[in-house]
């Protein structure tokens, strides 16, 4: 982990304590708390589990047990561009697994992993509700329908272009200041 990300995380953990205080000490709030943690960090860091357990007077193992039960909660930091490939029924029938394999090959990671530079993460999801556009992949919250192996290439080119544009924008801002 580079130090910038580390510092950022430490600051977030500090802030988490105050945000936890907003939740009543009621076990029924556990899932809401976990969701809040995930929204803050984009994943659930180990320290946060201890803090949540402490707040609700539960054993950390209990909190971990609940968190791991639900597919939504991640225990690894996601990439800057989280890629989700739909493997719902319609997408499966139309070859969603082939799309997933293409991403795996292209990124050289397996489903559930993040690239070493933390740019991309890859996971499978079950139906995002756009079955008529199957097979479907998501980059962040943006849905891409009618995927094909060649469109995987296109997506990366697009992301690359966007990235470069954002960087140019950033540099322009910095030089303007």
């Amino acid at each position, binding site marked *: 982990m580079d130090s910038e990300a580390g510092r950022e995380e430490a600051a977030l953990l500090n802030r988490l304590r105050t945000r936890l205080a907003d939740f009543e000490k*009621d*076990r*029924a*709030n*556990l*899932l*809401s708390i*976990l*969701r809040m943690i995930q929204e803050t960090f984009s994943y659930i860091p180990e320290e946060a589990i201890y803090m949540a357990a402490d707040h609700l007077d539960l054993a950390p193992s209990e909190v971990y*047990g*609940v968190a791991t*039960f*639900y*597919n*939504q*909660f991640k225990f690894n930091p996601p990439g800057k561009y989280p890629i989700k490939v739909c*493997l*719902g*029924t*319609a997408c*499966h*029938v*139309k*070859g969603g697994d*082939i799309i997933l*394999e*293409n991403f795996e*090959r*292209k990124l050289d990671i397996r489903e559930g992993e993040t690239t070493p530079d933390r740019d991309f993460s890859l996971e499978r*999801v*079950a*139906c*995002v*509700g*756009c*079955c*008529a*556009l*199957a097979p*479907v992949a998501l980059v962040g*919250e943006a*849905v*891409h*329908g009618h995927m*094909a*192996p*060649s469109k*995987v*290439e296109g997506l990366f080119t697009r992301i690359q272009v966007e990235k470069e544009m954002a960087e140019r924008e950033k540099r322009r801002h910095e030089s303007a200041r």
Partner: protein
Amino acid sequence: MSPPDKRSRSAAYLALQETALQEQEEHAETGGPVIHIGLATCGIAAGALETRHAFEQVLAERKIPARIHPVGCLGHCYAEPVVIIDHPDSGFPPIFYHEVTPGKAKMLARLFLEEGDPRFEHVYGAMKPNDLIPSVMEFSRFSREHRVVMEKCGRIDPGDLNEYIAEGGYRALDAVLRMDPGQVIETVTASGLRGRGGAGFPTGLKWERARTAFGDKLVICNADEGDPGAYMDRAIIESDPHQVLEGLAICAHAAGAGEGGIYIRSEYPLAVRIITRAVEQARQAGLLGKNILGSGIDLEVTVFQGSGAFVCGEETGLIQSMEGRRGMPRHRPPYPVSRGFQGRPTVINNVKTLAYLPLILQRGAEWFRSLGTEHSPGTAVFSVVGDVVHPGLVEIPMGVTLRTLIFDICGGIPKHKGFKAVQIGGPSGGCLPESFLDIPIDFDSLTEAGAMMGSGGLVVMDEATCVVNVSRYFLDFTQKESCGKCTFCRIGARHLLDILTRITCGNGRDGDLEQLERLSRDIKQGSLCGLGRTAPNPILTSLAYFREEYETHVQDGRCPGMMCRPLTAFYIDLEKCARGCDACATCCPTDAVFTTSTRKKGIDLDTCVKCGECVTACPPEYDAVRRVSPAHLAPVVERPAEPVESAADKPENREAP
């Protein structure tokens, strides 16, 4: 609809209605064209936001006095992004345009809105019968449907409470609040409404039990929709959230509950935002919260986000999850209506069940009974996906046959392929062959056939689908989603999956099919909740109706649907391959396509991942890529030791860009 009778409305409701009607009138007076854009998740996925942006831009640039009206989902997913343009001054009726890209949007704004030319070549149909343009009602996709719960979907702005009220919304609640709960339950019982969450439990009976239970009661709308291929609940919430809230409030009054909840999947971020906003709007308008519509009755509603577990759609699992535990179902009885969330009597109803209520209470039980069949009154909503020409959401009266639904309404199988099977009810449902196409769709007939209504997910499969592979897919899903409480479900499902995986990889053994059957039956018996009890359904039905397909997998290592990748191989028909064409080679993601010494193409079977991209890429006039099963039937073409320069690489052969 009954004529508005002022005396039967409360003062609070009349005030709301007046504001709503006033707003509607103001819009009508301003006149000018209205552009309705479908902005539910499916529309957005197809690019509806870009389309809206294009309209906004061109309207501003050219100062066209038109109004953009965001609406929800019309259910015509195959046509997204969908735009309906209502331009009264042009003399044309409202027109339905499909696949409206930003470019098309700008063109329509200029030519139709400014010059009055509707561009006939882009028109899908008119929304009203008229003499100028064929009406969409001439297409069976529109005329055979019977919209009841989805009546307002795609017509109103889900973010605007006034539009819902102007359409008669919350009128039923207003009347119900001044009725005796027993009377409300009587009407619902008389209507014969059965729960749309899957099992079809009579809603009136459930409420009656809740009403007579003791304790501080609670009502919950089940919007977990975990079936990985159904999305009607999401579409209803995204298109018409207040109808669901009104239903929830009616249910709360009937059951005597002062607290309500909406359990919604967090995988549906837009639906979560829309329903949360709707709850807030309703509270501010006095339709929820304290002293609803001046009746003295309170109802607090909270939105609870599920966290992605299929089994949490099961009612006891849902309760566990709301209590902050692992969502493991427990034994019933006690049913949630007597002991549910934190021990309190809890009524759980599906989104659609609740959305029917305002209509039933407004139009009467008789009206509802007049739709559908005797034992399954009303309509059914299906999300039809897979190999059909017009996929999307379809609402039909119960009792319509599968054939009508698939072939007449959804346009049948594309690309002139044959029908093979249909999976109804998602992972808990069954896989039915052609001989079942004429059974009526209702709760009882489907259960009899070994499938079930379930979530209403309907996957149509053409002849190029492998039912073994699809069964394996569903089992993979249920096996992952099993909560792990019952041994049979946890370990048995895993075993089933292992056997199926073996079969689809060509390693099936004698006796595998018998073992699948025996184990399936044991899992059904040995599991506590509906997940385990229905998980083997796809296998049992496909084994019963497509046994020979399993047998060819096991005995010949052949996949007739050409879907099981380990059992198939691609090769290039050298007779048909065009010298110098590079279409397949450039698209291959693994560089498995090489140029032969005769400057044609071959496929290196060791590097080929069988993605099928070359089949799509090969120009139809050559159509040279072939797929065979079993894999060893593919002729072997050696890759030349030295790479052969393909014809297209030579500058003189390259086409001008």
